[in-house]
Structures are given as C-alpha cells and as structure tokens.
C-alpha cells in the first residue's frame, strides 16, 4: 500500500515573534513494515538554517531556525510512504506466551533485548504504578500468548475509556486518565504503555498518521484528521508489535509511523522556543492521508 501524507502545522501568534528555534518530527521513519519514499518540508517564513538528521531513536528530525519577524508559522510536510501488505490477521493464539516472554527478558547477550530494556523503565510522562498493573492484570496470564494478552488489553482500553478531546491536555497525568476513563489517542497510548511496562513488557509510544478516508462501507477511523498515537510492545521472539487502543486494532496497513519514543516528549511533532509571540497562540493541525494508485510514478 502506498500513501501520500500532507501534515500542516499552523501557528497564529497574538504578537510578533522575532525569532525561533524549532524541531519537528514530521517525517515518516523507516520501520520493519514501512518505507518513506519521499519527503519534503516547507516552512514559512523561510528558515535561516535547516538540518535533517536521525535522532537517538532512529527517527528523522528536522531542525529549523527562523530569524525574521513573523506572526504566523506554517510547517507543511509532504511524504510518500509504502507499507507492506503483510497479512495482519495473525492467529492470536500462536506465538510466545507472556510467561515465557517475561523469562526471556531477563536474558542477556541479545542486542535487541538489551535495547528493549530501555522501554521498561519510567519515562518523563509515564510512571509505572500498581494502579496501572492492577488495571492491566486481568488481561495477562502466563500461559496465554503475549499477543492475545495485549490484544485483550487493547480491547479493554477501547471499551472502558471514552474518547473525549475536551477532557485532557498534554499535561494531564496518567492517574487522572485512569481515574476518569477518558482522553484522546495520546492518553490511551500512554496508558497502555504504562500498563505494559508495569507488567514487565517493554513498550514504546508510536506517533504517526492513519488513513483519512475509510474503505467503502467502513467507518472513518478516529484521529484520522490529526496526528495519531498508538503503542508498540516488545516480544523477545517476535520483536516489536504495534497495537492501536483508540481504534481497538493492531496497527496495520492504515497506520503510518512517524516516530518511536519512550513517550510523547521524545517524539513531539513540533516543539521549540519562540521569542515574543504574546499569549495563547492559535494552533491548527491538519493531516491528509490518501492512497496513491499502485502505478508509480502516480498520475498528478
């Protein structure tokens, strides 16, 4: 499957910004199941310096510095991504069990495993807790496959929590999300990562996009018009596997990854420091994901 993604981030400031320093995580990275074929970022006003690099987590980061006064900042990222059409309807009952995975995790010598242990630890926005472990535990039994455990947890989060864009902000603590059972995709992803880590399973926060238009006859996915977030967990035998608690599904051909991190702070789509700008800037984000005809290069 091939997608064209247009991600526009538009800031309107109350007062003039004299200069600013920013970095953006808006370029889809390469993963086991996707490849970024093309990418172009346009920033207005024109930056004085730009720099594209690969960060600690292997994500593509775009730095820019603007030295001319402005009251609006527009970052447009255009990408083309190819995703493996691998069959994701895998049998949940086949594979490594939760109990075996926990045991394997204590081993050493395997590079992937050592690297994965970083994602067992607390991170700035996600702290493991008994409450998270207690919530997750009913889904986890040692003899059950890890995949079906995580699938069950995903379904429970989807069922127990209501999607409520008005309830949380970036700063809402995980405990509040758990207590009130509401939030947005970012909160659900943080929650599930916290649950998994609390039960000894390494988990990543995944930031990305999902296809905007539904297939005929299917419902449009939630979070389609903005940046989306979901999780990936580590299974010693199977590597990293992605689940989307907001849509109660495994991340499949409709999920395009921009970046992996320990939590949102590692992969914030756009961050930085501005000089001036007044208070309460207006931020508009739009994301458009459309399929590209199989022919390459595509028409128009």
């Amino acid at each position, binding site marked *: 499957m091939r997608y064209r993604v247009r991600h526009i981030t538009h800031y309107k400031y109350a007062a003039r910004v004299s200069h600013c320093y920013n970095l953006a995580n808006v370029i889809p990275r390469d993963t086991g199941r996707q490849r970024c074929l093309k990418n172009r970022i346009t920033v207005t006003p024109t930056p004085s310096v730009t720099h594209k690099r690969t960060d600690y987590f292997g994500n593509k980061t775009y730095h820019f510095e603007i030295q001319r006064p402005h009251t609006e900042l527009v970052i447009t990222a255009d990408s083309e991504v190819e995703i493996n059409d691998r069959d994701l309807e895998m049998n949940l009952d086949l594979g490594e069990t939760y109990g075996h995975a926990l045991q394997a995790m204590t081993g050493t010598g395997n590079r992937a495993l050592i690297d994965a242990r970083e994602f067992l630890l607390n991170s700035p926005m996600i702290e493991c807790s008994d409450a998270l472990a207690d919530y997750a535990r009913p889904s986890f039994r040692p003899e059950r496959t890890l995949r079906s455990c995580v699938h069950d947890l995903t379904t429970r989060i989807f069922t127990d929590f209501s999607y409520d864009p008005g309830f949380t902000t970036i700063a809402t603590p995980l405990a509040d999300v758990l207590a009130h059972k509401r939030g947005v995709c970012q909160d659900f992803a943080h929650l599930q990562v916290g649950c998994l880590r609390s039960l000894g399973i390494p988990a990543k926060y995944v930031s990305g996009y999902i296809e905007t238009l539904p297939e005929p006859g299917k419902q449009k996915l939630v979070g389609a*018009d903005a940046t989306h977030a979901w999780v990936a967990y580590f299974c010693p035998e199977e590597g990293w596997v992605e689940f989307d608690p907001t849509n109660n599904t495994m991340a499949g051909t409709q999920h395009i990854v921009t970046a992996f991190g320990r939590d949102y702070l590692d992969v914030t789509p756009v961050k930085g*420091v501005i*000089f001036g700008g007044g208070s309460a800037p207006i931020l508009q984000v739009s994301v458009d994901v459309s399929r590209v005809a199989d022919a390459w290069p595509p028409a128009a």
Partner: protein
Amino acid sequence: MSQAITTSALPQSQTQGQAQATKPLNYSVPAGLVDEVHAADGSIKPQWAYLLASLGDLGPQVLQEREEKAQRILRDDGATYNLHGEDVSPSNTWELDAVPYIIGSDDWARIEAGLLERAELFNLLLRDIYGPRTLLRHGALPPEALFSHSGFLRACQGIRMPGDHELILHAADMVRRRDGSMCVLSDRTQAPSGAGYVLENRTVMSRVFPSLYRDSHVHRIASFYQRLRLKLTTLSPSDDLPCIVLLTQGGRDEARFEYAYLANYLGLPLVQSGDLMVRNGFLWMKSMEGLTRVDVVLRRVDDSLCDPVELRSNSRMGVPGLLEVARNGRVVIANPLGSGILENPVLLKYLPEISKALLGREPRLASVKTYWCADEDDLRFVSANIQQLIIKPIYRGSGITSVWGGSLSADQQRNLLATIHRTPHQFVGQERLEKSHIPTFSDMSLQPRPAILRTFSVATDSSYMVMPGGMTRIGDSPGGLAISMQSGSPSKDTWVTATEPERNVESEAIPEALRMHGDASLVSLPSRVVENLYWMGRYAERAEAGLRLLRTVFVQLNGEEPISTEATRILLEAVTRVTGTQPGFIKAPASLLEEPDEELLKVIQDGTRVGSIRSTLNSMLTSAEESKELLSTDTQRVINDLQDELDSLDAALSGGLASAPEEALDPLVTGLVALSGLMQESMVRGVGWRFMELGKRVERAEQIITTLRILTTPVAGEAAKATLLTALLTTMDVLITYRRRARQRPGIALGLELVMLDPSNPRSLLFQLERLQQHLAELPGSESNSGELEEEERALLAAVTRLKLARLAQLLEKETRTTSTMGDLLQEIEKLLLHFNTLISDKHFDHRTEAQQLVATTFGTVS
C-alpha cells in the same frame, strides 16, 4: 580612604617572641581516628615534619594573625561562596585554614597515576555511552544503569569533540583510608567547581606564609590553568583567534566569585545565557561591538539546563538552539553536554568491569563500595544495613539529598526504604568511610579534622594533566561526617611537596600567544556587563548626591542660627526630590516639617524604600557584583568597605539624629569618593570604563539640575536666601571656591556660575555635559563617516549650547521672572538628558524578549 583599608596586622616581630614563650603548638590525635601525620611508631612523617616545626616556631599568636590576614585578603578579593538557600547575601567569605594539607611527592606520584588512568577511563566511558554502547552489549554495565539516569541525555547521541578526548575536565572527591590509600567518593564531570578557589587559596597562602611556602618546595599549579587554556584553544572549530567564553548561571550562582576569578585568570569573558544567542547556525555573544562569534564554551551550567529547545524545556539558564550548534560542530562545549551521566554513582559499582572492558585492567584508584538498589542482592543488603550506609539518589538534580541511614529514626528509615523499593533504580547505598585527619588551626591550637580532597584533571593533546594538589575541605569536628562546599566547610590549600627543588615545567611547549593575562581591551564585553557598569556609575553618584545633601541639611538644621520655616521646607523638599523618595516632605504638613527626624532616618536607612540611601547603595553593590570580573582588587576592597559601612549604619544612627548625624554619613561619602577616585586611577580606559563614566555623568547632571531647581526657589529674607545659597554651594562642594572669589563679586550670580557654567569645576553642569560628549565620541562604532550627527550627539550638543547661551545675569534680573526662566532652562536640559539616556540604553543595552515554549501539538482535534 576609609579606615578599613589602612588597618593591618601587627608587625610580626612584636608578638612572635611572646607567643612562642606562652604556648607551644603541639599536635596530637586521639586514638581511633585515622591519622595522616603520625607514623605507626608515633613519629611525625617526614613530609609533615618541616611544616609542623615551622608552625611551632611561629606560635599560635602569629598563626592567628596570619590566618586573619589571609581572611582579610580573601575578603578584599571578594572571595565569597553563596550558600544554597541563602538568596542575596553576598558576604559569605570563603574560609581558608592556615595549615595546608601536605602530600609528599612519592605519595602524590601514585595518586596522580591513578587519577590519570581514571580520567582516561571516564573519557572512554563517555565516548561509549554516546556512541556504540558496547559496554551494555558486553554485559559490563546493565542497561538500566544508563537508561534510568536522568543525566543520560539522548539528544547528545553521536556528538563528538575534536581531538582525542570527549571529557575535558575531570574532578574527583576522595579521602585517605586507614591503610594510607586514596579512595574516590565521587566524580565530578559536569562543570567541576573549585579550581578557581584553589588558585585563590594558593595565592593567599604564598602571600601570608612566603618563606614557609618557598622553603617547602611546593609543586606549582599554574601550569594546570595554562593547559586548560591551551586545550580550550585547540578545541576551537575556527581557524581565527578563537573566542572562548565562560558560561555561568549568573547572579545566584553559588560559586560566582570563583568563576569571575577564573575568567580573569584565563582571560575569558564571563557570560550568562542571556549574553549568548544562536543565529544562522552559530553561537554569538552580544557584545558592545555587536555580535561576536563564540567558538568554545567553558561550561559552568549543568548540561540538562543548557538548551530549552532540546533539553529541559523549563530552563531559564540555557541558550535556545545551543545543542544543535554543538551537534554541527560549530561550537565546542567543555565539558560536553551529556557528560553529567558520568556522575552516576552506579558506575562506581561496575567500574572494575568497565575498566577491564575498556582498559584491559582494573582501575588503580579504588572507589567507595557502592550498592545499587536495582540489583536484588544489593537491595537486600541495603535494606538490612541501612544504618551503616549513606543512601544517595543516583541523580543529583533529583531534589533528594543523600543521607546517612544511621542519622534517621526507625520511622524515617522505613519511609526511605519504602521510597527505595518503589524506585530502586534511583538509589544507591554507599559505605561510610572513615576519613583521615589532618591538623587544622582552631582555638589557638592544632586540632585533627577529617579531610576530603578534590582533584582536577584536564585533557592535553594525548593524555591528561593532573593539577598537583587540589581543593581540601575539612569537617568541623573530629570524626565529622558532612564535608562539602554546600555545607560551608572550611578549605585548605593542598601542597604537594618536592624533596628536591622543582624543575620549571610551565614553560614547555606553551606558545607565547597563549600566555594568560592577554590585553584586557581585546576581550569583548557582554552588553549585560556594560549595562551594569553604567548603572553602577549612576547609583554610586545618586547615593553620593543624596548623602551630600543630607549632610548639608543636617548641618543647616542644627546650626546655631535658626533658619526660617520656608527655608526649612525647601531644604527638606530638596532631600525628597534628590533622593527620589516622594512623597516625603513634598507638600508635607507643618507637623512633619517641625519633626523631620523620623522621615530623614527612613530616607537614609529604610532599604525597602526605593530611593533611600540604603536601597540605592544596595543597587550599586548588586551592579558591582554583576561586573565583578572587571573591578580591580582595590576597587573590590572599597566596595567591601562600603558594604561594611552600610551594615553598621543602623548602629551608627541608633542614637537618632540628635547629635551630629552627619558624622554617621561621612564614612559612606568617603567610601564613594574613594570608589570614584579608583575608577579614575585604576580602570583601563576601555568600553566598560566609558559606560561607568557615562552613568556617573548623566546622574550627576540630573542631580545638579534637581538641586538647582529647588534651592533657587525664591524666598523672602536675606537670611533665608543665604541659607539656601550656602546649602547649594556646600552640597556642590564649591563653598570654598565661592568664598575665595566672593571677595570681588559676592552673590547668587557667582554661585550659579560656579555650579552651572564653570568648565573647570568638576561638579558643574557644563562639565558633566562636556564629559558626556567626550565619552560618547570614544564609544565603539562612533566613528561615523557621514557628517550628520547621531541622535544622541544631537541631544548633548543641544543641551550644551542651550546652557552656554544662557545669560545668568539676565536670568536673575528680576526674581519673580528669572526663576521661571531658570526653571525653563533646567527643564529643557533635563529633557535632553533623559532623551540621551534612552538613546544610549536602546542602542547599547540588551533588551531581550521573553522566550517561551512553542505550544504543544493537540491531538484528535476533529475539524
């Protein structure tokens, strides 16, 4: 000059003989304490013998005097250490004990070898941590030891320093154990402090004990600083003469003195984050000459605070975009960002493994036994033995301080253990080491005190160089536990003594161009420093004007001739206006004018009242503190004296204003005059001096105008007129000149001429304006090619012309008319001065806009 400058110690010869006779200096150590001085058989070890014998010859009395002298020098140099938690008290003088810590050269050679190896080891460790992380793969270090530490800055992955070393400075705190070997308690790899204090301690000791120091053949430490300077120079990414800055936190920095001292010694501008900015992918310093490109930053700010874009976003001490500039190799930061990870005490547990993996052998220098609570066995041990252990958070910035388990109640121990069990990764337990004791001068005798030594290493081309000696801190009682700079423990100079005279090692391979103390005028000044000098000049002048007027008013009010109510009112109003303490005596009721003492005292003493003498002097002292590195030792001394006089002002005025209150103000006036004299006599005529002068002249001109306006208010009666004229002339310090000239031509016209127009009177208005013109012409960037005048030149020219064209006789022809004409003239000149001040400030001072974080992206906003 004020009194304190002239006091000095008694001549040594007077007391030496007596002291020796009365009380010998013996040194004994109670059994059980680790003793550094005595050998097992009770004899004094050779390296200590000469020192103890010499101190014995001096005797306690002389030693006491020498220690006081040392303390006085430290104070005069402004050596302070601002303790944590104490906000604005700039007067914690650094404490230096008179007895140095002696280390013999053979002993030192072993310590030095261990330190060299340790610096190399930490360098390789740092490179691996932000590079391939092979140590994790080889199992030498558990991944959690790295990943759970907040000092592991993921944004710094892959950044490399030019040359062979990532780690430029390494410091280690260590103690000597019972078996005589050294043991490292912790490593400092962020921005090790103390090297500046060591230099100051050494300077003071060599002055206070010149012959003892000379005869002890102490290894010199100067080459360490030369090596540091040289290393910083070679790190520069640019081919030109590099611009190297010392970045500090600014005002509240605990070790501000040391940074200023070090910056001066190394010839580097001392900057704060606000003095720097990133532009077009490079780092720049905002200086008087505009933006100066910065090549190397010697960092004294913790790495996580250095860039709010990529590191801690709430930091106000960072430079936005700095990390990206460093990443691209366009500026080099020493120590590099991310080096704080090496301070993780968990590394001490695994250091033998790490060393075997990186160096192929175990380290020579031992580290304190460390238990990491994330390790199951260690956690069990810590839980069972918490009374014996020091519990430390692995990250210093965590807000939790380390604590000795034995000092906690059973409840506190349980709570601490519960916290540890919740986040075992974040804690270590460390063995509590017995520290060896060294002699310290206390209560007129030599007392054993436990000691910690901080050593410093700097990277050279191929290896490291260890400073011979270091910073010794001592505990305040035998067997005492807590010793650190933060807890204010006294310090000692550390003498590595040679058995034979030292070869001169400094001169090797250090090009002349890199010698320190370069031409001060070539070093750019940050705009902030210049602005502070400007305000220092203004505040000093403002305080002086207020003091002079107050003295005059006291004399007049208490004089033998009673003065009229009207003259009294005018004098008191002048006090309010000159100090700027409105409403004060302005339109005051008669009762206040009859009993003015309380308000006058407030104008002097009340620090909470803006404009009071105390408040203005405090502002002056704050500005001086901000530009400390530019002030000479003498200037620093005068500033200390002013601080002292200010501290004792309340005592001096405790009797109210009843008897000769002007006496109480004299020391302050004298101090300010001394300060002003030093500015003239001992400051290089650089940009800094120009701005201090500009501030002073602008302020003085404004004060003259204010004083003139009030004291030329028409009054009835010759006596009252004479009172005001005398007040004016006294305040302006021209009474004597007036009296001399008045033989030919008495009257107010002569007085006004002296105060306003006399170009030879340094307190006349015209003199101030003409000086301002001269200074303006000398400022950088003033050589304009076009014939058109700059706006600020215009303002001054207009003021001078207006003043010179005034006809005093006409102004004074008829009293009712003239005074209003006088008022017009003064008002016009004042307006021009204000305009001038605004222009200078806009043009040369930094008006930064507030930085803020870009608002975070929202999720799921359904359009």
